[in-house]
């Protein structure tokens, strides 16, 4: 029970993710089969739908934008500050910080991860591992979006008696960039507004908020 409680946040988000993904699959499946029936064609199975390009492109385009958002936020907050924001370091502390701040090398604690205590490539890698993994998932998801998107786009092209395009043509097409940018703009807005809202607004009990009574000017404090 204690194990579950210690991991309650990741568990609940994992469950919410699965419920939402299942809902997306079922509703998308219904829409797809409605089209099949209206075209006088046989309905497809759920398995066939969830392995189709139509489903894949819709999933991947949202994933890539979320991981880009997180990766950018982690990276940009190294060098850019927002006075008063819980998401920011104090103005003047921009940059990767000293080894002492980072608790690496000779400043590592006895219980620090092994790669923080060593030097060289391993420490450099571990010091940037969070952004590296987030960026890797972003790139993979974006690649998946482009591949599935090309198939989905070409399916529509063929249905309207137009010639299919190659992957390279699709990667510079308005369809690909429209799908991409409509997600990016909403993520950038959400992150930017969160950084500013956290200066002035509070949520009692949330570690993402300052204490309710903390002054607006106080930067980087979370309750």
């Amino acid at each position: 029970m204690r194990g579950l409680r210690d991991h309650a946040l990741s568990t609940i988000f994992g469950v919410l993710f699965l419920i939402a993904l299942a809902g997306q699959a079922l509703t998308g499946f219904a829409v797809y089969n409605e089209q099949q029936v209206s075209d006088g064609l046989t309905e497809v199975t759920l398995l066939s739908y969830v392995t189709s390009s139509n489903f894949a492109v819709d999933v991947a385009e949202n994933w890539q934008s979320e991981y880009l958002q997180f990766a950018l936020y982690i990276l940009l907050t190294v060098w850019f500050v927002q006075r008063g924001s819980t998401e920011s370091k104090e103005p003047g502390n921009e940059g990767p910080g000293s080894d002492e701040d980072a608790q690496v090398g000779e400043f590592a604690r006895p219980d620090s991860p092994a790669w923080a205590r060593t030097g060289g490539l391993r420490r450099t890698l571990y010091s940037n591992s969070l952004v590296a993994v987030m960026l890797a998932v972003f790139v993979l998801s974006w690649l998946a979006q482009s591949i599935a998107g090309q198939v989905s786009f070409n399916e529509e092209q063929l249905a309207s008696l137009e010639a299919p395009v190659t992957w390279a043509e699709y990667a510079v097409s308005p369809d690909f960039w429209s799908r991409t940018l409509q997600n990016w703009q909403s993520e950038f807005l959400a992150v930017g507004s969160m950084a500013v809202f956290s200066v002035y607004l509070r949520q009692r009990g949330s570690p993402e908020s300052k204490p309710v009574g903390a002054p607006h000017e106080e930067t980087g404090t979370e309750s």
Partner: protein
Amino acid sequence: MFHGYRRGGSPALVALAAVAASALAGCSSLAPDAPSAEGVAVAFAAALDAGNATEACAMLAPGTVEEIESSEDTSCDAAVLQLGLPSGGQGLRAEAFGRGAIVELDNDTLFLVGDGDGDVRGWRVTAAGCEPRPERPYDCTVKGG
């Protein structure tokens, strides 16, 4: 919410996401059966060349049959040989994406739609007698509604 990651995300979840993204890309890139679409297109053209209207109509998509019967005001069997569709010939190139396919024959270009699922999946001709036009859809003698 993005803040949780700053305190160390879940590597397992991230890894799962990466694997799933790759899997999705892999699945979707698996081209459906273009050779069988080409086979249907060749067989459709051969049926027309042989004067076998019933066989040709059986290979048309339902919407295309309706369109022919509506525009010609008679049955597909009676109309399909009179539409002036070109003699098809051998398959030159076939591409399939999702449930759509395009097949180029020696003398014609055809569009097909995948019908059914799994083992019973088959291709039906949606448009035939198609000529490419720059920046516009193909101009087809026969097409679905």
